[in-house]
């Protein structure tokens, strides 16, 4: 039954794509994040949905929707270069089988992110992709939040595996990223136009995020929540009211959180005596040594090739637990430079657009969206210091949407100056 329902959803995507080609790209986002093959049963499990939807999106784009191609900016250029570079490093990977396996998912993420500005050019399209991204992730954190409310919080749910978005720290970080996005939609969504539906829906989802974070028992989630709170504090004009609200908002969570959760969070302060936290620091030190001997990187999964004892801990076979160290160890100095440029240019682009739209009252909702994406990206960067998610798609969607918005902003600010007709950008 679940398989049939998911197939029905896929059918809806495909049927509507013939009339509105960007919906095929939305189907890819859904297939990539929600991973319906895993949620469903029967024949849908064997379908290569990501490949089907991505191929369909590109075919439709080239046949019917090839209008106003985006400008090549530094982020897009570095994304394409990074995709090429990780392919090269896979050729000389120390563990080729594992490397090619991870390359298959990484290359998909990098290439689709770099090409997303082809598909999403207008407000409704950009909002639609962010909503599909948001609701696809709901598949992962809704069960966690519901179980937490029902008093079934456990450290390791164990029923969904521990990889990708089912990994506790990863979903905790993604939930923290989604809070500002849902707060934005609660105010500014044009797809959910009725405020009686829009506000409860998105404020409700924003409330589910911290509940799901609590149910992951992941310290990364708490750090990411802290970073989010801190940014909002600095952005807030009424700082005293903000502190009061944050305090009152936190109290109920502290009452419903189980004792085991407090026990786990306390290890943040005592990281020197916590084996898990110290192992990460040892692996980071080991990777810096490893890359000095392998300056071009060891390829995907190179952590399995590392060995040695650091801080009295044997790091053989230990994962990176840091996205930057992950890229450094796997793709060397060139990889980390490209990776850093992608993230820094995204932040710089967002800062530039926030400044540009800040003085323009007619672009209030765009300005707020840019600020939201900026917070999401900072939260991701903070959390990714504790988990190896350099090729996890969520952050690349934020980067890709930033590129879409950069094209949009250049159209509304640069194009009118060149007297381009407004209707040229409608579709």
């Amino acid at each position: 039954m679940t398989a049939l329902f998911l197939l029905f959803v896929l059918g809806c995507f495909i049927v509507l794509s013939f009339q509105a080609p960007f919906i095929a790209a939305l189907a890819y986002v859904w297939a990539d994040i929600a991973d319906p093959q895993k949620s469903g049963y029967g024949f849908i499990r064997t379908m290569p949905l990501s490949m089907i939807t991505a191929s369909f999106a590109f075919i439709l784009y080239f046949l019917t929707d090839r209008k106003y191609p985006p400008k090549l900016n530094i982020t897009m250029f570095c994304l394409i270069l990074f995709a090429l570079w990780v392919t090269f490093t896979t050729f000389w990977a120390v563990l080729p089988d594992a490397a090619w396996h991870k390359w298959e998912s990484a290359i998909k993420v990098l290439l689709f992110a770099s090409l997303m500005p082809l598909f999403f050019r207008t407000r409704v399209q950009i909002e639609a992709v962010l909503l599909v991204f948001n609701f696809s992730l709901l598949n992962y954190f809704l069960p966690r939040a519901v179980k937490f409310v029902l008093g079934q919080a456990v450290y390791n749910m164990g029923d969904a595996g521990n990889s990708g978005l089912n990994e506790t720290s990863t979903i905790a970080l993604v939930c923290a990223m989604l809070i500002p996005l849902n707060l934005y939609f609660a105010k500014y969504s044009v797809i959910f136009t009725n405020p009686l539906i829009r506000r409860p829906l998105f404020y409700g989802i924003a409330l589910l995020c911290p509940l799901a974070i609590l149910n992951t028992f992941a310290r990364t989630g708490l750090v990411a929540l802290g970073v989010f709170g801190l940014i909002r504090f600095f952005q807030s004009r009424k700082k005293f009211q903000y502190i009061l609200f944050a305090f009152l908002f936190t109290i109920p969570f502290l009452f419903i959180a189980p004792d085991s959760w407090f026990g786990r969070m306390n290890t943040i302060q005592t990281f020197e005596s916590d084996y898990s936290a110290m192992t990460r620091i040892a692996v980071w030190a080991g990777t810096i040594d490893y890359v000095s001997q392998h300056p071009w990187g060891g390829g995907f999964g190179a952590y399995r090739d590392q060995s040695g004892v650091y801080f009295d801990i044997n790091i053989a076979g230990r994962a990176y637990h840091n996205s930057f160290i992950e890229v450094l160890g796997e793709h060397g100095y060139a990889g980390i430079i490209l990776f850093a440029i992608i993230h820094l240019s995204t932040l710089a682009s967002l800062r530039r657009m926030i400044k540009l739209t800040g003085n323009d009252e007619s672009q209030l909702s765009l300005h707020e969206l840019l600020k939201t994406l900026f917070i999401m990206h900072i939260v991701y960067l903070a959390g990714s210091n504790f988990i190896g998610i350099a090729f996890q798609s969520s952050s690349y969607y934020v980067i890709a949407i930033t590129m879409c918005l950069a094209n949009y902003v250049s159209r509304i600010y640069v194009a009118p100056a060149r007297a381009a007709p407004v209707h040229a950008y409608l579709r």
Partner: protein
Amino acid sequence: MITIGTVLIPQLLILYVIYRAYVFFRAKGVGYFDFPPAGSPVNGNDTVIKRTGQ
């Protein structure tokens, strides 16, 4: 029951999003495609729906 609900709800919301995006896309109005000015009739209130049917 929780599993069915947690699979069903996100997918229904996604179906609504693609339906609405499709309707907007076919409507071809300027306001539907740009970030509307603050306080304008298309700044996320019901007026958008009414215009869509045109």
